[in-house]
């Protein structure tokens, strides 16, 4: 039975009460040329059995390939308990509760999530999440322009070493607000943002600089120098980080003398499975002084009239249901279910567990890097410290290589970097998380060797 509360009879009674013949008549004021008409490309509905069959068949086509692909979303082991607990009825709601304070359990969980993220990032405050990593960066850029009241330029320095998808999503969101994203090149030898290229902007009115860690190439940026540059030039700093890497590396709150102003990124590595690009969740933290410019919901802990602990939505005057068009963002909701999983994931692993995952991912990628670059026709693109990804150059067409290895050997050989960075030639971004074994890496190396050298 469909979950539609109105019967045909109910609908006709409602229409006749207000003196309208059909539901379509209610939309009369929309001109014909603005209507989409019939959606001919959309197939008619299928029942549950048919849909299940279709999805099973599609999934079977993918098979279970051996994955060395990262580029923003990563295959980590997720303990079975994570989604067992997340999908309990008490948590299994993907949305911010509308009668928020009646849902103390959900609010407490979000509060715990915020505490964990703030601690992982070394920052004062976290919001209750955003849509995904790319849109979180766009929100961070908008926030920085609001928060940097001394700056009138609406110019943002955006390193070319940032994930190109993040760059294009941010561009799409901020371009109509007259915000200019200025490219900052990377050093061809190290893959790090070129500090000398920043010199031309010293003293110029710049609203904020974006600092990725690690950057899209897996390379660790010189974050202290970049953060210090921002402070010297009265520019706000926005870190875009992989949360897993922060279990191992110095968190953005401790970069340079001051720490950064805003941190954002993709939360998927924390307990969210790879699923064709989503749903994932974005995260955002900031210094306390910027909290009123922060988008998204914030949960606070308080005491009620009887002196008992309780959780509540706080600083709501920033949000659209109060501030209307002047709200800090139109995102007042969050990816509640994914955040639930991430909170449970982090609490099951603890800081030591997270650190082990990060360390093993780093170790495996080092092994992968050494093994692959020993192959004739493969070399490392950048000489730099990396976290759990690196770029290799190959003596073959990168696109064709990826397709062949996927089809013939069920190996996802990496991300084709050449499309966004033609200057790198045929290059792949490869990744080995803690889920890859020595045997997996050996298998990949063997297949790649015979593809290139036989």
């Amino acid at each position, binding site marked *: 039975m469909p979950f539609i509360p109105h019967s045909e009879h109910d609908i006709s009674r409602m229409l006749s009460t207000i003196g309208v013949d059909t539901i379509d008549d209610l939309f009369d004021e929309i001109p014909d040329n603005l209507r989409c008409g019939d959606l001919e490309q959309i197939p008619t509905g299928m029942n549950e059995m048919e849909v299940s069959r279709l999805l099973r068949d599609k999934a079977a086509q993918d098979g279970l390939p051996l994955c060395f692909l990262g580029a923003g979303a990563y295959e980590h082991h997720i303990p079975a308990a994570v989604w067992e607990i997340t999908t309990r009825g008490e948590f299994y709601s993907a949305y911010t509760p509308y009668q928020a304070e009646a849902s103390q359990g959900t609010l407490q969980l979000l509060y715990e999530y915020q505490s964990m993220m703030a601690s992982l990032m070394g920052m004062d405050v976290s919001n209750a999440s955003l849509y995904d990593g790319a849109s979180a960066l766009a929100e961070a850029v908008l926030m920085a322009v609001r928060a940097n*009241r001394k700056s009138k330029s609406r110019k943002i320095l955006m390193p070319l070493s940032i994930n190109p998808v993040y760059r294009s999503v941010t561009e799409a969101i901020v371009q109509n607000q007259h915000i200019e994203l200025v490219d900052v090149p990377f050093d061809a030898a190290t893959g790090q943002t070129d500090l000398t290229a920043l010199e031309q902007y010293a003293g110029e009115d710049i609203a904020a600089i974006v600092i990725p860690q690690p950057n899209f190439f897996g390379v660790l940026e010189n974050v202290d120098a970049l953060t210090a540059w921002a402070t010297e030039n009265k520019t706000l700093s926005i870190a875009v980080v992989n949360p897993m890497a922060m279990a191992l590396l110095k968190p953005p709150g401790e970069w340079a003398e001051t720490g950064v102003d805003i941190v954002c990124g993709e939360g998927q590595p924390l307990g969210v499975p790879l699923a064709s690009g989503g749903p994932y969740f974005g995260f955002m933290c900031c210094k306390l002084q910027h909290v*009123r410019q922060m988008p998204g919901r914030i949960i606070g802990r308080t005491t009620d009239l009887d002196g008992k602990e309780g959780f509540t939505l706080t600083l709501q*005057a*920033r949000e659209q249901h*109060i*501030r209307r068009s*002047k709200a800090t963002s139109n995102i007042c909701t969050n990816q509640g279910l994914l955040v639930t999983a991430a909170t449970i994931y982090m609490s099951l692993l603890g800081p030591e567990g997270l650190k082990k995952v990060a360390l093993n991912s780093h170790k495996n990628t080092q092994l992968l890097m050494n093994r692959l670059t020993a192959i004739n026709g493969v070399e490392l693109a950048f000489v730099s410290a990396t976290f759990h990804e690196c770029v290799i150059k190959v003596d073959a067409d990168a696109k064709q290589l990826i397709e062949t290895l996927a089809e013939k050997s069920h190996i996802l050989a990496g991300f084709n970097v050449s499309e966004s960075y033609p200057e790198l030639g045929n290059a792949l971004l490869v990744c080995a998380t803690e889920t890859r074994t020595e045997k997996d890496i050996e298998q990949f190396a063997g297949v790649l060797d015979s593809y290139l050298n036989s």
Partner: protein
Amino acid sequence: MSNTPDDRKYADSHEWALLEADGNVRVGISDHAQELLGDLVFVELPEVGQQVGKGDECSVVESVKAASDIYSPVTGEIVAINGELEDTPEAINDSPYQDGWIFVIKPEDTSELDDLLDAEGYQNLTEDE
């Protein structure tokens, strides 16, 4: 019944404007406005040196239930802001006409004050609301 001193002028958007002996105009919000907003928790102040036009948004007061823009009642330059409000925004609730002032403008033309309501006119306005 809210308090409406007759030594100053009022905008229908609930700011008061007091012409001082040095020719500058001190600005705050009325007793009626602070009552409507409830407990204030934050004030976003303009910057000293900022040029503002009559009717421009130049400050925000935020209470536990609402955030409200403050419009400049005259054209001119901001010459002082009440930095105390950053730590004690409740001064606006406790003393809207004295300690709770928000900023001081050096006006270009004091005759703009004539467009504002006097205490009686403002009182009538708030009674109609």
